[in-house]
């Protein structure tokens, strides 16, 4: 089984209001196809860690590899296209662009990547929406559908470029239990059927317990992997 993501001795400091160590010698690796939860209390540094793993935050010490490509020390001009191609991100809030239709929202990252032509992107976006059961909402503005549907569209957007790794920052934090179940099943299916790697930050214990693996953090250190 190949390693999807690996981090070595990651340290991070906040300098405001005073120098404070948020992450302390964090090291672990995640295999391709694993469904991993990072848990911990508020302030344990789990979200901070996730944003480093997602390559959005570059202000840290230590080494980060995704698919054996070293990403630590690289700048955003390299990381942005990498993120675009290899990482799908889901937030606690859907963060769809309200001026665009659901379909356009899903298409935008793929249009940016430019890997496929417009027709193919549209077909693939429809396919993702169908996978998530919101195909019938495709042409509505993103601001005019329900919260659960919005989060599903957001997941479709994360999947559009066929990333190997999907990261979620409390992806179900804002959903009722029925929608949470839908999203969980979706993640399950993505790992089992499509061999995607999923890393989510959550403090929903039920959700975490049903994952393949839990990484637990306390005060910036990993206490169990």
């Amino acid at each position, binding site marked *: 089984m190949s390693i999807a993501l690996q981090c070595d001795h990651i340290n991070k400091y906040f300098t405001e209001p005073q120098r404070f160590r948020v992450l302390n010698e964090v090291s672990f690796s995640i295999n391709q196809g694993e469904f991993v939860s990072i848990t911990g209390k508020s302030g344990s540094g789990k*979200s901070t860690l996730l*944003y480093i793993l*997602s390559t*959005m*935050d570059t202000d840290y010490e230590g080494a980060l590899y995704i698919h054996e490509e070293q990403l630590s020390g690289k700048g*955003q*001009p390299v990381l*942005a*296209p*990498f*993120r*675009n*191609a290899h990482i799908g*991100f889901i*937030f606690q809030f859907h*963060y769809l*662009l309200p*001026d*665009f239709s659901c379909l*356009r929202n899903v298409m*935008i*990252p793929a*249009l*940016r*990547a430019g890997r496929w032509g*417009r027709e193919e992107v549209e077909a693939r976006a429809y396919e993702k929406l169908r996978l998530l059961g919101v195909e019938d909402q495709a042409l509505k503005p993103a601001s005019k559908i329900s919260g659960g549907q919005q989060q599903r569209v957001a997941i479709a*957007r994360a999947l559009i*470029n066929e990333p190997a790794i999907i990261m979620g*920052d409390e992806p179900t934090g804002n959903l009722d239990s029925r929608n949470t179940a839908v999203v969980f099943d979706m993640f399950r299916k993505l790992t089992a059927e499509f061999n995607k790697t999923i890393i989510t930050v959550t403090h929903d214990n039920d959700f975490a317990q049903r994952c393949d693996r839990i990484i637990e953090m306390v005060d910036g250190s990993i206490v169990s992997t």
Partner: protein
Amino acid sequence: MKMGVNTEIAFTYLISRKKQTLVAALGVTFGISMFIFMNSLITGTNEYSEKAMLSATPHIRLYKDHAMSSASLLDNYLGRQTVNLIVNPQLVPDDNRIDNPEAVMQLLKRNQLITAMSSQVSANVLYSHGGVQENGNLQGVDILQQDKMFDISSTLVSGSVKALDNNPGSILIGVGLAERLNLQMGDHINITTSQGIVKSLQVAGIFKTTIKSIDNARSYCHASAVQQLLQRDRAYITDIFINIRDHHQAPAIGRQLEQLTGFTAESWQSNNETALAGQKIRNIIANSVVITILIVAGFGIYNILNMVIYEKIREIAILKATGFQGKDVIGIFIRQALFIGMIGAIAGMVFGWLISLLVSHVYIGAGNVTYLPVTFRIRHYVQGGLFGIATSFFAGYIPALRASKVDPVQIIRG
């Protein structure tokens, strides 16, 4: 239509905020229409006043000035063994004639830049008819050449230049003089010089230039008539009037002709310095008004884009999270600014043209100005459009740069 994803996002943002887009574009429209209108009116006014100046003045006047006494004759007589100096040199009185005018004209004809030439001999005279007398200036010219230069034909209210050309004993007078002396076509007018020589000429035409000082005093006749009045020979010529292809180059070409002929050249600009200074001041006033308007329009775009970016900061963070780079974000907002600029510029060109058209139909009727002089130059419209788009670009670039520096982690995590 095929367009990039940045363009598509920029367009969607603009369309979802129609009112803001419109207000920003209206700022540009206003700026550019004022730019075009101001430039058209100022150019029109300048051209009008230049035309008025050039209807009475040639581009270059060639004449012989009094010269300072020089030591060249002493050098000839005494030789160069000693340095010959003249203490307290004086201006040597001369009769100010162009020596050998035919040869000079032949020489000038070879210059490709010269479009028209006319030799002159003028005299200050007393016009008299039926006991009434008026002062004036009689110009002896080859009327056909003079007509080519100043378009006298178009100012004639009666008679023709042909009639003058055919009859050496005839004269063209101004409409003011005709009224004061009660002269009609075919009447005879007595001309008296300061030396007391009298000559009678027949009125062959009456012109009206609307410039009072000319209509009241100037008259044209054959050069031979003036030469007779002055008791001079047939080669007596005091000035050569020269028109050139581009009248803005008159001072430079004038200097060349001075070198070539040895006579003094006076350009129309040096003759009309006050009027030209007025033109310059008008240009400065108009340009400062226009620049102010464009800057205000620029601030309008800047404000609106800043507001859009403030509203969209979360969406910008998301775009960056999904793989958009700083330069993509700049691209998105610059496109918005440029689109606003383009819409504004096109509307501004149309609107500027409409204002110019409207103003060119405003009747003034002051002096010899009938309607406001307005030009319609493609150049002004192109410049206006380019200025508008450039202003929009710079007004958009600053907020766009700010947007590109948005840190997605900070925004998304709050």
